């Protein structure tokens, strides 16, 4: 693969690097295929099966094309936002295929036990070099679920400088989402028991820009730096999440649907360094800082270490990732009755809470003889363990102390992959 391919900075432009087959005459067998089957399992909650296929081709004139298809089948139990209680809690849920009721035992985190969703996503990118040093990539993706449809288009331009040691890229993307909550969208901030619904579907749209610089530092060191801003506007609530209303004695007196602002702007800086320490060992270290106007600040650090063996015919790649975020300004694990009626934004969605998370993973890949006219193929298997620990420090009524109010997330991901 041409080294200059590595110098594409913008994410949309990077996808052409998926190609393993060399540029050739245009025969169908010159398409490279990258595929995987992932299984995701959360402790006591969601599980998902996700097959992914990406086909790509680099043409002799430098054009590149790729398509990908992803399917997700999710099932299991999904937290509804309510807090554990000393008493049983009964909910009427619209998620899944039909209205149903479920009861959560005392001390347990309320989860909708019949969550089910299927998702299919199809995307593609086309890269065109229009001078020796410039190329443009355009792409798009559509994704459909039972209650959600998304369409995204993106475009980016990349320019090489300095004997192709530097690439500056600029990309934009535009996403349009249509949400049709099962059972209709609740009125944000309304009482759960009143079941006040809004008519029709909901939409949101987002625009993002990404500026990237990729620099060959030395013969063994490649660095990439991106800044990006995106702004979403529209229906940003989770229509299935609500917040417990708690009395000062600790009893649950009701629930209120979450109510988020209708716009959000995020800014991020991302820095990745790839260093080859020897013919066998290389590392990829990435750091990310992100903040948004909801009050969330996050830091992420991820390290991949690849250890190649047997003349690069196989490799082992351990991974560790550390993440932490602050809570959104309007995050609250519960609403006290003394705070009612609330007119401000509120959400008990734990994804907007303060927490930290660790991921530990390992991958093993093995080169195999190729199929047909291909020189080789690669089989891989990887596993990851993800643990999220909430850092919520809101004082709780005495009666609720001792309950595991914020259990966090423990999840395992196993994936097999095949490239040819």
């Amino acid at each position: 693969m041409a080294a200059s391919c590595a110098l594409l900075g913008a994410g949309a432009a990077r996808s052409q690097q998926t190609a393993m087959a060399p540029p050739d005459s245009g025969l169908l067998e010159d398409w490279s295929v990258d595929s995987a089957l992932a299984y995701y399992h959360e402790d006591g909650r969601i599980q998902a099966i996700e097959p992914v296929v990406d086909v790509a081709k680099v043409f002799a004139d430098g054009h590149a094309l790729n398509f990908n298809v992803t399917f997700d089948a999710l099932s299991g139990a999904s937290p509804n936002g309510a807090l554990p209680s000393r008493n049983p809690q009964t909910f009427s849920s619209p998620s899944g295929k039909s209205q149903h009721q479920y009861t959560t035992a005392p001390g347990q985190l309320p989860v909708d036990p019949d969550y089910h969703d299927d998702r299919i996503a199809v995307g593609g990118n086309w890269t065109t070099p229009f001078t020796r040093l410039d190329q443009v990539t355009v792409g798009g993706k559509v994704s459909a679920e039972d209650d959600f449809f998304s369409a995204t288009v993106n475009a980016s331009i990349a320019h090489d400088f300095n004997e192709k040691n530097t690439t500056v890229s600029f990309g934009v993307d535009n996403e349009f989402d249509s949400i049709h909550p099962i059972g209709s969208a609740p009125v944000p901030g309304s009482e759960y028991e009143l079941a006040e619904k809004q008519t029709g579907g909901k939409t949101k749209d987002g625009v993002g820009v990404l500026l990237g610089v990729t620099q060959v530092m030395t013969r063994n060191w490649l660095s990439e730096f991106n800044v990006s801003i995106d702004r979403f506007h529209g229906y940003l609530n989770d229509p299935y999440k609500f917040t417990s209303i708690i009395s000062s004695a600790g009893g649950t007196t009701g629930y209120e649907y979450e109510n988020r602002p209708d716009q959000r702007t995020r800014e991020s800086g991302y820095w990745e360094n790839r260093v080859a320490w020897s013919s066998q060992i290389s590392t990829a270290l990435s750091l990310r800082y992100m903040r948004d106007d909801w009050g969330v600040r996050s830091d992420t650090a991820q390290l991949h270490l690849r250890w190649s063996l047997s003349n690069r015919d196989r490799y082992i790649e351990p991974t560790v990732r550390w993440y932490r975020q602050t809570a959104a300004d309007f995050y609250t694990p519960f609403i006290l009755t003394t705070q009612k009626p609330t007119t401000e934004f509120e959400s008990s969605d734990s994804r907007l809470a303060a927490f930290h998370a660790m991921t530990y993973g390992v991958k093993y890949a093995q080169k195999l003889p190729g199929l047909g006219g291909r020189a080789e193929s690669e089989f891989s298997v990887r596993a990851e363990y993800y643990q999220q620990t909430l850092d919520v420090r809101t004082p709780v009524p005495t009666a609720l102390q001792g309950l595991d109010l914020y259990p966090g997330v423990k999840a395992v991901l196993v994936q097999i992959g095949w490239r040819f």
Partner: protein
Amino acid sequence: MISRLIRLSVILGTMSISGCGSLGVKPWQRDVLAREDMQLDSNPIDAAVDDHLYFSKEASSGGRSFAGGGCGCN
């Protein structure tokens, strides 16, 4: 914060564009950089699967590429 990031990217960009002394290699020195493990997107499907996981569990996304998810999971 974003102004600091932009300043840093401008500095990096200026260093690069000016061909700052020791940065970069000659075309015949790209043997290591051509290795598959030195490509910025050496495992795009792994990255996509991980991004989907983190998008559905965390408030942040993107950075390496665009932040949108195209998923109703968050």
